[in-house]
């Protein structure tokens, strides 16, 4: 196979890697600030996809036009889940959040199955089949949009964390809840915000994926595994790590799918995962302890 195919495959992987990064950044933000691993992150991607489908089906709003609405709805769902469930396990033993978020993941899958049945749904967009070509390379518009929006969202989050008082407070909570408290920061406020943003990012990823993926109740599990691999690969709690990890995994998965076998595309992911962890056990951007 020629370099053309190699470049095309890499580029396709890079684009989808941006979306993986977005899911993983949400996961790593929640973990970094609250020390809680959200095992239901993939299910929130799935919810984002269903919201996108509902907006299209009932209101005729396309996925891209409705992106902001979907993000706000997901943020509010995040708030509800936080107030009703997550708040009970903050600062408790690890088993508690593991059982809670795993249970939430099963609940969300089955609740959606009950409401929407197991049918595969599709969301169409007028831009779905448009593509940009350059030399031998072709990129479909949904991939380009997904990549650009994902990267923009990560950039906005990075700015928020680094340059605003709200972000500094979240970083203070991430490092020490107690130090943050004696500085006058209400940790619960930072936790709420981190969780809602993390869920909104998963939702945005879901919306960006709908023109490319079927929407069905179990679709979130695809992204759960990938998101965990990306987060650990990048270093738990590191936003730049999750971004880089997402892009790498996207490319590796795409290349394995093309050159080895489509069924084995996740194999490459895990090979890279193991190699990186062998040399850097705390991940690419992880803090060595």
């Amino acid at each position, binding site marked *: 196979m020629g370099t053309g195919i190699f470049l095309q495959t890499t580029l396709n992987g890079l684009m989808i890697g941006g979306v993986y990064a977005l899911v993983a950044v949400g996961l790593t933000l929640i973990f970094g600030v609250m020390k809680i691993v959200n095992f239901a992150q993939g299910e929130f991607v799935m919810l984002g996809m269903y919201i996108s489908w509902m907006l299209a089906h009932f209101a005729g709003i396309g996925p891209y036009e409705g992106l902001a609405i979907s993000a706000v709805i997901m943020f509010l769902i995040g708030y509800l889940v936080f107030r009703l469930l997550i708040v009970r396990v903050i600062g408790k033993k690890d088993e508690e959040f593991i059982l809670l978020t795993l249970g939430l993941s099963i609940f969300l899958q089955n609740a959606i199955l009950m409401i929407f049945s197991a049918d595969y749904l599709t969301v169409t967009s007028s831009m779905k089949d448009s593509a940009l070509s350059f030399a031998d390379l072709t990129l479909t518009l949904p991939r380009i949009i997904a990549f650009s929006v994902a990267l923009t969202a990560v950039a906005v989050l990075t700015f928020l964390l680094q340059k605003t*008082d709200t972000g*500094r*407070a979240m*970083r*203070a909570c*991430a*490092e*020490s809840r*107690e*130090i*943050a*408290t*004696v*500085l*006058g*920061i*209400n*940790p619960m406020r930072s936790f709420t915000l981190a969780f809602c943003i993390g869920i909104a990012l998963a939702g945005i990823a879901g919306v960006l994926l709908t023109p490319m993926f079927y929407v069905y109740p179990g679709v979130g599990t695809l992204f759960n595994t990938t998101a965990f691999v990306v987060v650990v690969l990048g270093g738990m709690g590191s936003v730049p790590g999750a971004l880089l990890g997402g892009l790498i995994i996207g490319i590796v998965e795409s290349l394995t799918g093309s050159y080895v076998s489509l069924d084995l595309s996740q194999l490459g992911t895990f090979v890279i995962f193991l190699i990186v962890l062998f040399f850097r056990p705390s991940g690419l951007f992880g*803090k060595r302890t």
Partner: protein
Amino acid sequence: MLEINNIVTGYGDMKVLDGITLSVAEGETVALVGSNGAGKTTLLRAISGLIPVWSGNITFNGQDTTKLPAHELPALGIAHIPQGRGVLAQVSVYDNLLLGAYIPSAKSRREESLKEVFKIFPILEEKKTHLGGSLSGGQQQMLAIGRALMSHPKLMILDEPSLGLAPIVVDSVFKIIKDISAQGVSILLIEQNLVEALAVSSRGYVLETGRIALQGKSADLFNNDAVRAAYLGL
């Protein structure tokens, strides 16, 4: 200004403080000394609301703070520098300082506060882009004090500021504490370093296994035979 009235508290079922009564007047520097395990840090944590008080009460400027959430105390004017300095290691020196002025009343004059702190501690301006954790012990203590000053506190609570510092650095830390006190800030200070602590304070309390064993003017405590025998080996 700070009135602690017969408080009892501890961790889990274990009682650490058994009826402590203590006060700090406006502009006063008070030292709290005692051996390891006497409950000094626990007392400071109770004042800052980091652990709940079982009985008794704490008032600050007439307001009962016993049941207030810990994060509301800095806005009243209490700055707590915890043991081990409480510098955020993964956050830059500059951001550590800005976080010192997180409370609304301090945020509005953040820029001028920053200038003042950099004037007292030029090294912090030099290292402002470095991570807090990369500073030396003495520099971290300066950062912790500088960050507390950013909030313009009425009462500064220091938990063993000399811990783990070289003797020459300890001297400069106590000189800074004296300067802060001279500006009218009340100070409550825990120290193992009895000589320095009693030299910088006007009054002192000796804590022994959860109770106040002795209290009085620092000079008197320093000349007390029991104190000299127990803490100075004289």
